[in-house]
C-alpha cells in the first residue's frame, strides 16, 4: 500500500467523469485515441529491434563494466548508480534507445532496487533533448540556435544529479 498508487486510478476516474459531465462519447473517443497510439507503438518496433539488440551486444561485450569503472570517481562523488550511466548517456539522444536501456536495467536490477528506482526516475523526468532541438529548428530558417543546447543540457545534468538525490532522500539506498 502506497499513497502514490492512488494517482493513476484517481486520474483515470477524473478523466472519465469529466468526459461524462461534458457529454463526450467516452467509449468512442477512447477507441480513437487508443487506435492512434497503437499505430505509434507498431511504428516503434523496427527501431526498438535495432536498438535493443545493439544495447544487448554492448552489455554482452563487457564494456559497461569498463566504462563504469572509468567513471566511478565522478559517479561515486554524486552517489549515482553505475548501472544507470548508459541510460544517462543515451537519454538525451534517443527515446527508443533510452527505452531499450531502461528495460535492460530493470531486467538486471530489481525495479525496487536503488539503481532500478534511479533509472525509473531518470526515465520519467527527462526528455530526448537533441531530437527535440533538431525537430523544432528544422521547422524554421534560424540555423544559429544560440544558447538552446547548453541550457537544455544544464537541465539534463540537473535531472541526472537530482534523480539520485531524490531517490536517496525518499527511499534510502537499499
Amino acid at each position, binding site marked *: 500500500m502506497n499513497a502514490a498508487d492512488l494517482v493513476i486510478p484517481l486520474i483515470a476516474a477524473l478523466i472519465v467523469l469529466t468526459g461524462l459531465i461534458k457529454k463526450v462519447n467516452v467509449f468512442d473517443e477512447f477507441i480513437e485515441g487508443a487506435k492512434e497510439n497503437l499505430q505509434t507503438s507498431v511504428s516503434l518496433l523496427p527501431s526498438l529491434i535495432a536498438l535493443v*539488440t545493439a544495447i544487448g551486444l554492448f552489455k554482452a561485450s563487457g564494456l559497461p563494466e569498463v566504462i563504469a569503472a572509468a567513471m566511478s570517481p565522478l559517479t561515486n562523488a554524486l552517489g549515482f548508480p553505475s548501472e544507470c550511466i548508459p541510460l544517462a548517456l543515451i537519454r538525451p*539522444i534517443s527515446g527508443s534507445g533510452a527505452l531499450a536501456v531502461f528495460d535492460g536495467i530493470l531486467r538486471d536490477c530489481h525495479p525496487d532496487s536503488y539503481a532500478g528506482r534511479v533509472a525509473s526516475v531518470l526515465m520519467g523526468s527527462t526528455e530526448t533533448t537533441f531530437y527535440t532541438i533538431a525537430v523544432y529548428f528544422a521547422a524554421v530558417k534560424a540555423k544559429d540556435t544560440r544558447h538552446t543546447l547548453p541550457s537544455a543540457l544544464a537541465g539534463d545534468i540537473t535531472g541526472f544529479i537530482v534523480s539520485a538525490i531524490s531517490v536517496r532522500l525518499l527511499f534510502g539506498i537499499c
Partner: protein
Amino acid sequence: MMNKIFSIIIVISIAYGIYSGNFSQLSDSLLNDPSSAVELVIFLTGSMCLWGGLMRIAEKAGITCYMAMLFRPAAKLLFKGLDLNGKAFRYICMNVTANILGLGNAATPLGIEAMKELEKVHISEGGDPLRASDNMVTFTVLNTASLTIIPSTCAAIRAKYGSASPMEIFPAVIITALSALTAALLASQILKRFSKQTGDDK
C-alpha cells in the same frame, strides 16, 4: 546522428567482446535480443493504447483548455514581449498542455506551429532570420524538459519486472522533473545575455 551511434555501438561492442573473450555472450545477444524487443513492444502497446484513449477523452472534455488557463501566468513570465492574444502564444499553450497530458503525438506538430509563429514575430520585429529569437530558444528549451505528469510508460515497465509499487517513484519524478526544468530555464535566461539576439557578437 542515430546512424553513427548505432554503427559505433555495434562495431565497438563486437570488437571488444571478441577481444575480451565474451563471444558466446555476443552470439546469445544477437539470437535473443530481437525477440525481447518484440516482447517489450507488445507489453507497452497495452499501456500506450489505454493512455492514448484516456487522454483523448480528456482533450474532448476540454481539460486541455483549463490547463492552458493555468499555464498563462507562467507563460507571461517566460516569454517576454509576446502578444498574449497572438497565434504564437495560443500554440505555445496548446503544446505545453499536450506535453503535460503526455500526448507526445499531439505536442510535436503544435510545437512546430508555435516555432513558425515565433519566427514570424521575430522577423516582423526586424530580427535576423538566421538567428533564433530569445522566445524561440526558451520555447525549445521548455520542450527539451519533461513536462509529463504521469510517467505511465515508465510505471508499466516497472510493473512488468515485478515492482511492489510501480508508481512509488511519482514524487521523486515530479521533484526531479521540476528541478531539471527550473535549471534549464534559468540557464536560458542567464545565457541569453552572452549571445545577443541581434547578432552583434558575430
